[in-house]
């Protein structure tokens, strides 16, 4: 099973279309392996652990506001799985 340990979901809040375009540029950088959950403003994107620093630096260098909406994705998945198992039991 794919493990999402260390992955975070950022909520990015571009202030205008220029900043939104700068965010979209990241989608084309496949090495980042970003997974955009929501493209309207604000933008939600899953960031793998290996890309966290790069994405943070990129956003900060362009003064684009963001925060970690989900700080530990795997913890949420584990909770979901626990709930399903407990209901089934």
């Amino acid at each position, binding site marked *: *099973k*794919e493990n*999402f340990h260390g992955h975070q*979901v950022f*909520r990015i809040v571009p202030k205008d279309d220029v900043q939104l375009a700068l965010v979209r540029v990241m*989608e084309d950088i*496949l090495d980042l392996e970003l*997974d*955009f*959950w*929501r*493209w*309207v403003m*604000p933008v*939600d994107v*899953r960031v793998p652990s290996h890309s966290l620093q790069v994405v943070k630096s990129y956003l900060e260098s362009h003064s684009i506001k963001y925060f970690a*909406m*989900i700080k530990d*994705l795997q913890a*949420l*998945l584990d909770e*979901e799985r626990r*709930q*399903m198992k407990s*209901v*089934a039991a």
Partner: protein
Amino acid sequence: AGNTDSFDYTNYHTLSEIYSFQDMLVAENPKLVSKTVIGQSFEGRPLNVLKFSTGGSNRPAIWIDTGIHAREWVTQASGIVFAQKIVTEYGTDSALTEILNGMDIFLEMVVNPDGYHFTHTNNRMWRKNRKQNQDSSCVGVDLNRNWNAGFGGRGSSNNPCTEIYHGTRAHSEPEVESIVKFVESHGNIKAFISIHSYSQMLLYPYGYTRKPAKDQAELDQVAQKAVTALASLYGTSFRYGSIIKTIYQSSGGSIDWTYNRGIKYSYTFELRDTGHFGFILPANQIVPTANETWLALKVIMDHTFKNPY
């Protein structure tokens, strides 16, 4: 669960549990519900569609689908609730009873069964189907970029490694092609409603072009009524409008194709939530999400019934 009354609607379910639910619903309501297998997925799973009909032949019909994107679990779960509601409200809810006395409803709860199974067994965040793409190690096609409506345009990708890969050609994916063939052979579908999550929106064509749909004014009015009905239950706020103006440009989407095929009432929902959980929306949100969405669905179905074309 031994029957649909004891089925746990408040929890997420595996594909086999959903398929069992469908069979139970058919067995319990043989005069109202039947199951049609419209095709097979890439990995050979059946593509089941439930037909709710009180009789007649090739009646005008309403299509509802959930789960074209595998990880949007609240949509498949809501589809189950909708099916149960159709059965229990027929004969008690006057509006739905009238609709079903004149029209059929088709419901495909899991448009993307391979992807859905994969979210349960390998990768909870999987969105696409499980097509093995030639000349690429990356798997899957975005089934909502594979329709013949601005296919291959902006808002889709020709790179199999992206989440919005459109596939090799329009309708290349069996999960899409099966619906296309079904819609075309039926020929009398009057509303087509495709359900996604999450962003809290009700959208109508177009996604691939800024050109307004010729019925935009009416589609907008109905959408406004529908989101008002939805909000009446818990105050959940939905935005509404054309796809391209409300979210972003996306080419090759299902409702753009259905609209261009002449299905005027083509809508797509983006269900809860507001972004605190995304695809990990807790199971206790399933029934409230389905209940509020059902109110909006009924507005669209009722308008379709009362405005034949």
